[in-house]
C-alpha cells in the first residue's frame, strides 16, 4: 500500500499529525489519567524516532518538500500555473535540526512527568496539551508558509500559557500565565500585521516566494516595517532583553517539565527569527545593521540576564535568568554570522560563529533542561523552591546531585562538556569580528559559574539539616528523564567534532543558503539571492579534534591528560602521612573558636553568599531592580519601545549601500 519512499516523503506532516491526533484522543480519557500520560510518553518516543529518521532523510536527499492537498507531494507549482498555490512544508537541515531538539526535550519532559504530576487532577488534559505543544513546535520549524507559521505560533503560545497555569492552587500561576499571555498575544497580532503587509504587496504567502519578491524589489518602507515587527516579536518570545520580563515569571510558575518545554519553545522562536533574517531578507537589507541589532540584543541579554540571576533566591527564577543570558550567546554567534553575510568573511569566521550559535542551541536545550529538571526534583523532595531554606541535600539525593553538577559545569562552559565546545566556537569567531564582544562573553561565563556555585552550595552542600532528614531520592521516571539529558550532554562533550560535522554544519550551511531554499520551491532563484558558501574544515587530522577558525579543541585528549595528571596527584598524595581519624576531636567544627551551635545556624544561606558583590554594585542594581516592576503594562511598553527603536534604526541605516 505505502512504499518506503512514500513514507519518507510523508514523514514531515506525520510528525505534526500524530501528536495532534493523540491530543484529541487523550482529552477524553478522564477515567484513566495514568494510562493517558503513558500513551503520551510512548507517542513522544515514537515522534523522536521519526524525527531522527527525518533528519537522516534530509541529509541524504537534500531539502524535503511536502505540498498539502495535491497529487504530487513534491511539486510545489501545479502544472497549469507558475506560482505556488498550496501550503507546503519545507524541511531543510536547519528545520530538521530544530525538530530534533524539540522532540528530544519533549521525550525527556514527558518521561519525567510520569511521576512528577501524578498527584494532580486533570492529568489527561495535561498530557493532551503537552502533545499539542510538541505538535506546535514541530509545525513551526517545519513549515514553509508564513501564515501557517502564524497559526503554529498561536498554537504553541496558547498551549504554553495554559500549561503555565496548570497548578491552579498556587497564587503565582494565574498571574504569570496572564502576563505571558498578554505579551504573546500582542506579539502574535503584530506578526499577523506583518503577514498582511507581505500580502498586500505581493499576493503570496509562501516564504520562498516572498523571499524572491523581496530580493527583487529590495527594502521598501513597508518591508522595513515588517522586518522591524518580525525581529521585535521573535526576539521577545525568545527572551531577548529588554522584553524579557515575562520569562522569569512564566518559567518559575510552571511545573518543571513544562519549563523545559517553554525553554525549547523559546528556542524555536529564535529559529523563526533566524529564518526571517537569513531566508526572507538576507542581503536585500544592509546586513551590518541587522546583524548589529541582533548582536546588541544578544549582548544586553547576556549581561542583564546573568547580573539579575545572582541576587535571586528562588532557584527556578535564577535558572530562568540564566536562560535569558544563554539566549544572548546564540544571538551573538548568529548575529556575527549575519553581519558578515555577503562579504568574504562569511567563509572564514562568519560561518564558524554561526555554527557556534547553532550548536549552542541544542546544547542549551539539553543542559538547561537538565538544570530545570533537577530544580523540579528539589521541589518534589523538599516542597520549596527557596534556596534560603535548603541545605545538605547531596547526602540524600546523590543522583540529582550528579545530574546538577553535570548541568552546571556544562552551562558554565567547563571542559570536557558540550558547553565548552560551543562557547569556544563562539569566542574564537566573535573575537575576530570585534574583540570586546568576546571579552564580555567570557566575563558573563564567569558570572554564570559563580551563580551556579551559589546554587550548588546552598542546596546540596552544607550540613545535615534536621528538617530534611526524611528526604528521599526522586522516583525512577524522574531519574530516567534526567539521565537521558545527561547522557546526551556527556556524549556531545566527548565527540563535538562529529556533532558539528554531521548535525550542526549542514544546518548552518542551509540557513545561509537562501538561493537553495528558494530554488527548491520555485525551480530557480533570482540572481540577487544569496547563495551557498563553502564551509571551512571542521575536523582536524588527529582523531577527535574540532577545528575552529583559529584554534582547535580535542576533548578526548583533554580527558587523557587530566587522567594522567590525576594519577600523578594521587601518587604525590600517597607519599604523605595520613593521620586523619574519624570520630575524634579532629572533625568537630569550630566557628571563630566556639563550638558550633546548631547545623541550621552554621549553614551559609543563599542570600548571604555574594552580599559583598551585590553591595558594591548597588549603584548598578538599584535602577535595574526598579526597572523590573512586575506591572503587565510595562511589559508591553518595552516591546513597543524596542520595535520602534529597531524601525528607526532600520529606516535610517538599513537600506543596502546606504549610510553606515
Amino acid at each position: 500500500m505505502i512504499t518506503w519512499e512514500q513514507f519518507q516523503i510523508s514523514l514531515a506532516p506525520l510528525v505534526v499529525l500524530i501528536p495532534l491526533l493523540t491530543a484529541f484522543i487523550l482529552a477524553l480519557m478522564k477515567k484513566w489519567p495514568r494510562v493517558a500520560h503513558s500513551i503520551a510518553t510512548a507517542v513522544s518516543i515514537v515522534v523522536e524516532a521519526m524525527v531522527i529518521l527525518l533528519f537522516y532523510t534530509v541529509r541524504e536527499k537534500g531539502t524535503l518538500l511536502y505540498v498539502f492537498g495535491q497529487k504530487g507531494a513534491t511539486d510545489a507549482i501545479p502544472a497549469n500555473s507558475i506560482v505556488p498555490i498550496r501550503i507546503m512544508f519545507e524541511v531543510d537541515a536547519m528545520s530538521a535540526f530544530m525538530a530534533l531538539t524539540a522532540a528530544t526535550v519533549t521525550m525527556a519532559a514527558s518521561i519525567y512527568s510520569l511521576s512528577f504530576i501524578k498527584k494532580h487532577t486533570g492529568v489527561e488534559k495535561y498530557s493532551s496539551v503537552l502533545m499539542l505543544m510538541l505538535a506546535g513546535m514541530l509545525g513551526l520549524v517545519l513549515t514553509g508558509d508564513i501564515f501557517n507559521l502564524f497559526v503554529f505560533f498561536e498554537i504553541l503560545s496558547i498551549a504554553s500559557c495554559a500549561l503555565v497555569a496548570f497548578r491552579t492552587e498556587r497564587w503565582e500561576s494565574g498571574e504569570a500565565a496572564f502576563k505571558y499571555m498578554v505579551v504573546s498575544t500582542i506579539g502574535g497580532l503584530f506578526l499577523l500585521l506583518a503577514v498582511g503587509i507581505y500580502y498586500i504587496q505581493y499576493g503570496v504567502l509562501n516564504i520562498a516566494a516572498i523571499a524572491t519578491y523581496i530580493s527583487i524589489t529590495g527594502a521598501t518602507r513597508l518591508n522595513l516595517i515588517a522586518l522591524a515587527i518580525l525581529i521585535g516579536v521573535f526576539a521577545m518570545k525568545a527572551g531577548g532583553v529588554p522584553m524579557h520580563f515575562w520569562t522569569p515569571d512564566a518559567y518559575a510558575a510552571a511545573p518543571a517539565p513544562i519549563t523545559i518545554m517553554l525553554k525549547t519553545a523559546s528556542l524555536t522562536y529564535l529559529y523563526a527569527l533566524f529564518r526571517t533574517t537569513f531566508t526572507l531578507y538576507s542581503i536585500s537589507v544592509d546586513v551590518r545593521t541587522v546583524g548589529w541589532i541582533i548582536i546588541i540584543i544578544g549582548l544586553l541579554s547576556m549581561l542583564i540576564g546573568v547580573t539579575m540571576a545572582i541576587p535571586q533566591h528562588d532557584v527556578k527564577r535564577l535558572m530562568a535568568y540564566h536562560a535569558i543570558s544563554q539566549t544572548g550567546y546564540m544571538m551573538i554567534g548568529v548575529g556575527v554570522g549575519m553581519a558578515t553575510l555577503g562579504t568574504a568573511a562569511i567563509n572564514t569566521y562568519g560561518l564558524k560563529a554561526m555554527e557556534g550559535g547553532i550548536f549552542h542551541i541544542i546544547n542549551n536545550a539539553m543542559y538547561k533542561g537538565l538544570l530545570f529538571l533537577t530544580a523540579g526534583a528539589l521541589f518534589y523532595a523538599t516542597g520549596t523552591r527557596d534556596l534560603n531554606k535548603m541545605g545538605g541535600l547531596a547526602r540524600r539525593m546523590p543522583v540529582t546531585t550528579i545530574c546538577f553538577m553535570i548541568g552546571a559545569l556544562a552551562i558554565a562552559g567547563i571542559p570536557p562538556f558540550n558547553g565548552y565546545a560551543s562557547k569556544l566556537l563562539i569566542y574564537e569567531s566573535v573575537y575576530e569580528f570585534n574583540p570586546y564582544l568576546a571579552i564580555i562573553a567570557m566575563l558573563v561565563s564567569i558570572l554564570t559559574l559563580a551563580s551556579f556555585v551559589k546554587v550548588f552550595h546552598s542546596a546540596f552542600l552544607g550540613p545535615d539539616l534536621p528538617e530534611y532528614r526524611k528526604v528521599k531520592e526522586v522516583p525512577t521516571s524522574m531519574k530516567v528523564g534526567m539521565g537521558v539529558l545527561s547522557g546526551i550532554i556527556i556524549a556531545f562533550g566527548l565527540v563535538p567534532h562529529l556533532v558539528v560535522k554531521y548535525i550542526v554544519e549542514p544546518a548552518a550551511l542551509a540557513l545561509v543558503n537562501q538561493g537553495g531554499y528558494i530554488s527548491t520551491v520555485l525551480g530557480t532563484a533570482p540572481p540577487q539571492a544569496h547563495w551557498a558558501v563553502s564551509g571551512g574544515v571542521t575536523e582536524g587530522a588527529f582523531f577527535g579534534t574540532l577545528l575552529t577558525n583559529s584554534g582547535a579543541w580535542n576533548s578526548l585528549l583533554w580527558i587523557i591528560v587530566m587522567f594522567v595528571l590525576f594519577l600523578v596527584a594521587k601518587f604525590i598524595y600517597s607519599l604523605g602521612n595520613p593521620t586523619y581519624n574519624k570520630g575524634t576531636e579532629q572533625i568537630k567544627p569550630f566557628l571563630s573558636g566556639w563550638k558550633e551551635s546548631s547545623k541550621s545556624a552554621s549553614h551559609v544561606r543563599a542570600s548571604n553568599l555574594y552580599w559583598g558583590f551585590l553591595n558594591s554594585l548597588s549603584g548598578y542594581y538599584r535602577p535595574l531592580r526598579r526597572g523590573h516592576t512586575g506591572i503587565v503594562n510595562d511589559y508591553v511598553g518595552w516591546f513597543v519601545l524596542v520595535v520602534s527603536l529597531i524601525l528607526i534604526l532600520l529606516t535610517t541605516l538599513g537600506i543596502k549601500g546606504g549610510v553606515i
Partner: protein
Amino acid sequence: MMANLPFIMVALFIAIGLYAVLFKTNLIKIVMGISIIESAVNLFLIAGGYVKGGIAPIYTSAPEGEEMVLPTPQALTLTAIVIGLATTALLLSFVVLIYRHYGSIDSRKIRGLRE
C-alpha cells in the same frame, strides 16, 4: 486618499488599542484593548484584499462579468478571528484565577512576581 481610508482607520485603532493596553490598570480593560487591536488587524487584512468595484468571491447567483475581490484575505481573517476568540477566552479565565487569589484586578497590585 479616500481609497486609503481603511488603512488610516487601522492605524488609528491600533493606536487606541495600544493606549488601552499600556495605560489602563484594570485587567479587563487590558483584555478589551487586545480585542481592539485584533479587530484592527483583521480590518487591515480584509481591506488589503479589496478590488475596486469587486463583488464577493462566490459563484452562486453571481452577476456576470464582474471582478471578484481577493478571496485569500477572507480565509486568513476567518482563521484570525477564531484564534482571537480562543485567546480572549483563555485570558478571561486567567483573570478569574487571579481574582480568586488576589481579590483585586488592578494591575498595579498584582506584582507578586517582581524583579
